Structures are given as C-alpha cells and as structure tokens.
C-alpha cells in the first residue's frame, strides 16, 4: 500500500470511487431527457426468449430491428449507429410494448403483433416482400415462390430468399413462415434451430 506521503494520488483515492448507484440514476435520467429533447434516435434493450437473448431496437417511428444472439449484439448496435444515427441509448421503456408482445407470442398467447414498425433498414423489393409476410397466417407456411408471386414478381424467387434472410425485424415480421418448396426450412438469420423452434411453437399452438 502506498501512503499519502509517497503517492499523491493516494490522497485522491476516495475521488476515484465509481459510485455505481449515482451513475445508474444519472443514466436513467439522461434517457428521459434525451427522449424529451428528441435526441433518442435509437432506443434498445434485450429480452430473454426460447430462441436466445434478443436485441430489440426502436426509432421514434417504431420497432426497427430484432437481432438474435448469433448476430452479435454489439456489432448490430454499431450497424444501427452507422445506418440510422449514433445517438443510440439503452432505453427499455420505448420497447415495453414490443417486449410484452414477444413474451406473449412465446407463451403461445399471441398470434399476431400490433406494433408500429420502421422498415427503413429494408428498401425497394425487399420491403414489399416484408410487407406481404404478415399475411401468412400464424402456424402456416408459404414457399419462396409463393411469396415471390404475392409480391408481384413471380420470377424473383432468389430475391425473396435474400429479403427473408436479411429481414431486419424477424419474428415480428414472420419470415420464418417462408420455407423451401420441398418443405425444408431454408436459411434464417437466427439459425436453423431458431426457425424450427418458431414453426413448431406455432404449429402446436394453432392445433
């Protein structure tokens, strides 16, 4: 141990006290002040789910991103800072509704979501594919070519695959209900196990 006589910073040891309680209060009030000042461009939180920890992010317009564990949440946040705004804060309250509806969905008590969505991370054809997906009923599936037909471009089967694989709001926008014509699952942002779990959950609940 250094004594105050030999180490000037020892006199300051108490000044370095991190005071986590004061800090967490300050961070909470910053989130509130940021929201009132229209500076909370991207709010996020995480929730636990049967498909792993999910990151939820919302702009002022609505839910903009749902990300699986395997996507690396830190990277996802950097991506949001890049593509939307670096004003990104951990602010659970804006996502209370989304968190509650997702938890009801995983408890098989909810078959469709009623949330404002922000599709800014999907453009053009991809967005029209995503717009069609909520029309696929809970517990049912469509093939990539059926979705291509519904989106108005029957030959764009591969593009439908890309649109589904890059869906920024999975689960809520049910790209997991799009499967290959032979009945196999196809690619999924959350991995094949997550896709299979969601489809089984819906099939069991729909019966």
């Amino acid at each position, binding site marked *: 141990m250094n004594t105050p006589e030999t180490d*000037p910073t020892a*006199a300051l040891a*108490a*000044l*370095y006290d991190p005071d986590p309680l004061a*800090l967490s209060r300050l961070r909470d009030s910053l989130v509130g002040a940021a929201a009132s000042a229209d500076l909370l461009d*991207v709010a996020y939180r995480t929730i636990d789910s049967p498909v792993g920890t999910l990151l939820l992010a919302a702009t002022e317009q609505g839910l903009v991103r749902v990300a699986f564990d395997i996507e690396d949440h830190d990277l996802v946040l950097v991506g949001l800072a890049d593509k939307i705004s670096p004003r*990104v*804060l951990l602010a659970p309250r804006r996502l209370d509704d989304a968190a509650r509806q997702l938890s009801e969905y995983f408890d098989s008590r909810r078959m469709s979501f009623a949330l404002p969505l922000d599709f800014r991370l999907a453009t053009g054809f991809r967005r029209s594919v995503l717009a069609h997906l909520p029309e696929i009923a809970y517990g049912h599936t469509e093939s990539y070519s059926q979705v291509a037909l519904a989106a108005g471009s029957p030959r764009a089967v591969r593009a439908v695959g890309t649109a589904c694989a890059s869906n920024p709001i999975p689960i809520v926008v049910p790209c997991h209900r799009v499967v290959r014509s032979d009945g196999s699952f196809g690619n999924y942002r959350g991995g094949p196990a997550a896709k299979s779990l969601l489809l089984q959950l819906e099939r069991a609940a729909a019966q």
Partner: protein
Amino acid sequence: MSKAPFEAIVENHGATVLRVCRAVVGFHEAQDAWSETFLAALRAYPELPAGANIEAWLVTIAHRKAIDITRARARSPVPVDEPPDTRSTVGLPAAPNPIWAEVAALPNKQRQAVAYHYLAGLPYQQVADIIGGSADAARRAAADGISTLRRNYPRTQQKAGNR
C-alpha cells in the same frame, strides 16, 4: 471509420465525467453538470469527427457546463445551511467523502487542473487548452492542488472517523 453507439460513450466515460463534475462544481451540483454534459454531448455527437479524443471532448463540454452552473449560482445565490462542524457518525451512504470538501476549497485553476489531469487523465497540454494558460502553468496548478490535498488528507480522514 464508424462511430460507437452513444451508449458505449456513457458506459466508458460516465464515471470519469462524474468524478470531474464533482471536483469542479461540487459534490451536489455534479449531477446537474453530468446530465447537461451528456445531453449536450448526445446532441453534438453525430457531428464529432470519427477518431476524435472522446475523453478530452467530454471534459471540454463538462468544463463549459461547470462555468455556466457556477455563473448561474453566482447570479441567484440559493441559501445554503452552514456546513456542520461535526459529521454524522451514522454514516449515511449518500454522504460524500470529506475529501470533496477539500477539493471544493482549492482555488479554481488548481481544482480544474487536478480534475482534468488526475481525475480525467488528460495530459497537461490538453488541460491547458481547456483552462487557458500554458502546459507548465497547468502542471504547477495541479501539483499545488495535489500537495494541498495531500497535506489536508490526514485531517480529512480524522474528521471522517472510522471509515
């Protein structure tokens, strides 16, 4: 180069900025200074050049906010109770360590130099850029401040009782 989400800035620098605010405007007004600093930083963050020195940027904002708060305090002085001669022995968790009172008693420049160099870790040149004057003057102010704190430290500890 992409910019870190602002949450990471709060996570990485929040504690340092709180220390700096406590040293510069005092323990109790530090909360306001901290909040105003981070709200101003959040507002300006998209325009901050990528690769900028975040700590120096935040300390510069905190320095300006501290000046605003000190000026506002001077314009409309709020009645404050005389500090008690003896401290509570109950040891309320919210009671600041008496070292903060010693910091508050330092002359302005010394207090700022100690805060920005010792608490925020900025080199003397950057400290000088913020508080004015030369790097040497900043070094002397920090050294004088520290030696006063060091001299008063045993007394402070006695006052604090069996901490």
